């Protein structure tokens, strides 16, 4: 048994499971055939993705002018999507790193999928600044590499360049963290595989993991240190994203509250997206025994907490905008001007989806309901998109001079690229759900005896979780052949 757990705690693994049952349950979706629903979902996502790619080609071929931007609103829909996707990408590393440091064992059922979500979301986020460059083939100019212009180096004073470093570090470190955790689980699939092609693929993916005691010792140390490194990293990424706005001199953006409030908002939206995805996945892949009501409740508690931080930040922004008495502050995204102006619908959507909706989670019945959590999570996803849209479009729509006032209206290309990234995200996630062990098989086995339902019952009766040692006489097999070939 790896650790002591109070008997009063609810089990994290339901039913009577053995180590072998866990392997079977997690390998089943990979080894079985996809059902009709999977194909329907995949086809829709694929069509959306292709539509988005079409819009991207159109943008690159024609120019950024096909978007609804103007000289006053130079960023709008695309950067909204960028920040939205980066925010979603925060929950994965938070779950795997911060919750590991806090020894929250419930993270084990959800961390693999949350990390997958992180990586796929950051892919989508990364697309937007690159497309927005207009000439994406020059994207490598953001890297500090010697060039023929002098060399003219990148500007390390710019928050946009900090973003390049933060996001590429975040993406690559998350990917390595995820993959290292996957190695033993790929090895499990490899050693079970019957089809030769499948065996070859998983042998390649598992990097030849053998599970020696020393490997496990190093594995655990590496996981812990990576968690320690990823924790400040995850906080730094959205802090730096918020610097894109906070270091500017626009009223409504130039705000010292942005870094902590963006980080809280990112965790808020990231957990909402995890709820959305796992709500579907636990049904589709039959993981009901591992992703339980308790997991949903714990995630909802994180959502209430971070949603509360976001609500307080909104209130502060609104109050300060009014309290300054400055006419320029009267059209920031949280101000009387915004509440009564042409973007009032976006202002009230933000309040409804992000402040009102999460309050229903104070009720235990709602918090523990799969359906309610799913609906609330969708609402929060929408609300967090509005938050970024409001910050960007409302603030830019009314500049210092009335002659610069302009209303942003998206074109079909703006919308098409956004839909395309949602499609691309689901294409990746659906492929992942069919080919990767969606729950960390090895890790969840370590908590079976402390948090499994049947083992908890055993301990409640005062019995040991260690099985009785039965001496089997006729079990010695002497062979001269090398058994290594068996593996």
């Amino acid at each position, binding site marked *: *048994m790896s650790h002591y757990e109070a008997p009063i705690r609810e089990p994290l693994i339901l039913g009577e499971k053995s180590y072998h049952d866990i392997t079977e349950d997690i390998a089943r979706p990979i080894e079985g055939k996809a059902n009709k629903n999977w194909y329907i979902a995949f086809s829709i996502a694929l069509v959306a993705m292709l539509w988005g790619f079409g819009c991207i080609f159109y943008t690159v071929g024609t120019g950024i002018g096909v978007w609804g931007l103007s000289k006053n609103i130079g960023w709008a829909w695309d950067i909204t999507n960028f920040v939205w996707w980066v925010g979603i990408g925060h929950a994965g590393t938070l779950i795997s790193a911060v919750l590991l440091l806090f020894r929250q064992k419930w993270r084990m059922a959800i961390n693999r999928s949350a990390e997958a979500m992180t990586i796929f979301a950051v892919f989508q986020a990364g697309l937007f600044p690159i497309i927005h460059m207009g000439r994406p083939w020059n994207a490598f100019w953001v890297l500090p590499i010697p060039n023929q212009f002098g060399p003219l180096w990148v500007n390390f004073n710019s928050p946009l360049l900090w973003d390049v470093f*933060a996001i590429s570090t975040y993406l*690559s470190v998350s990917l390595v963290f995820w993959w290292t955790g996957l190695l033993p689980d790929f090895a499990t699939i490899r050693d079970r595989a019957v089809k030769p092609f499948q065996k070859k693929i998983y042998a390649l993916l598992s*990097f*030849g993991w053998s599970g020696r005691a020393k490997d496990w010792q190093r594995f655990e140390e590496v996981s812990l240190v990576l968690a320690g490194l990823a924790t400040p990293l995850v906080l730094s990424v959205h802090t730096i994203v918020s610097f894109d706005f906070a270091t500017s001199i626009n009223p409504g953006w130039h705000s010292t509250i942005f870094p902590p409030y963006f980080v809280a908002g990112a965790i808020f939206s990231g957990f909402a997206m995890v709820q959305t995805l796992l709500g579907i996945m636990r049904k589709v892949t039959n993981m009901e025994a591992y992703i339980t009501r308790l997991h949903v409740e714990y995630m909802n508690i994180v959502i209430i907490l971070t949603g509360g931080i976001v609500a307080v930040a909104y209130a502060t922004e609104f109050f300060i905008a009014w309290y300054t008495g400055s006419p320029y502050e009267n059209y920031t995204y949280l101000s009387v001007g915004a509440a009564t102006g042409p973007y009032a619908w976006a202002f009230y959507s933000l309040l409804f989806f992000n402040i009102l909706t999460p309050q229903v989670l104070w009720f235990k019945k709602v918090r523990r309901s799969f359906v309610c959590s799913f609906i609330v999570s969708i609402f929060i996803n929408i609300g967090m998109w509005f938050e970024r849209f409001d910050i960007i479009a409302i603030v830019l729509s009314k500049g210092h001079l009335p002659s610069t006032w302009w209303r942003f209206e998206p074109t079909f290309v703006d919308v098409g690229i956004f839909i395309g990234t949602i499609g691309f995200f689901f294409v990746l996630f659906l492929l992942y759900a069919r080919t990767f062990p969606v729950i960390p098989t090895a890790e969840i086995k370590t908590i079976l005896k402390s948090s499994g339902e049947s083992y908890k019952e055993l301990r409640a009766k005062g019995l040991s979780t260690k099985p009785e040692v039965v001496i089997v006489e006729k079990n010695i097999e002497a062979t001269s052949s090398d058994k290594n070939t068996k593996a």
Partner: protein
Amino acid sequence: MGASKVVHALYNDDEVLLDAVKEIKTAHHHIEEVFCPFPVHGLDKAMGLAPTRLAITAFMYGITGLSVAIWMTNYMMIQNWPQDIGGKPSFSWLENMPAFVPIMFELTVFFAAHLMVITFYMRSKIWPFKKAENPDPRTTDDHFLVEIPVSGDVAELTTLLQSTGAVEINVIDKH
């Protein structure tokens, strides 16, 4: 007669395994290797494995990353092509340092994380196209395999292993 004999004892429970390893060690047998499907806490101590120094390497790699960031920002922004950006001239690294903090932080993490993981892969000999070396496919599912080289009486060793709760014992000629 170059072949040496090893005993492979399979267990199907982590607590039984941990007690067995302790008993085998008390009986003064050398444990060559233990293959596990998941990390068993306390196994490294029971086997007498030295603690890993990967965390120390991560610290050193982090310092390297920080140094690279300091060198890079100083060379590119101050030495090679100093620019006056937004009325903020690049006279000295120290004065411009606050703007470089995000870069210094990110590169520290980047170097520490990636180089530590590469070190781990190299030390544990895991990389793409590497062939797995676990002797039995069940060791990635629910079985634990203890490999003990045979030095004396095989029968005596197998009796000991049986009494510790091994579910299967194989004597193997290792080439």
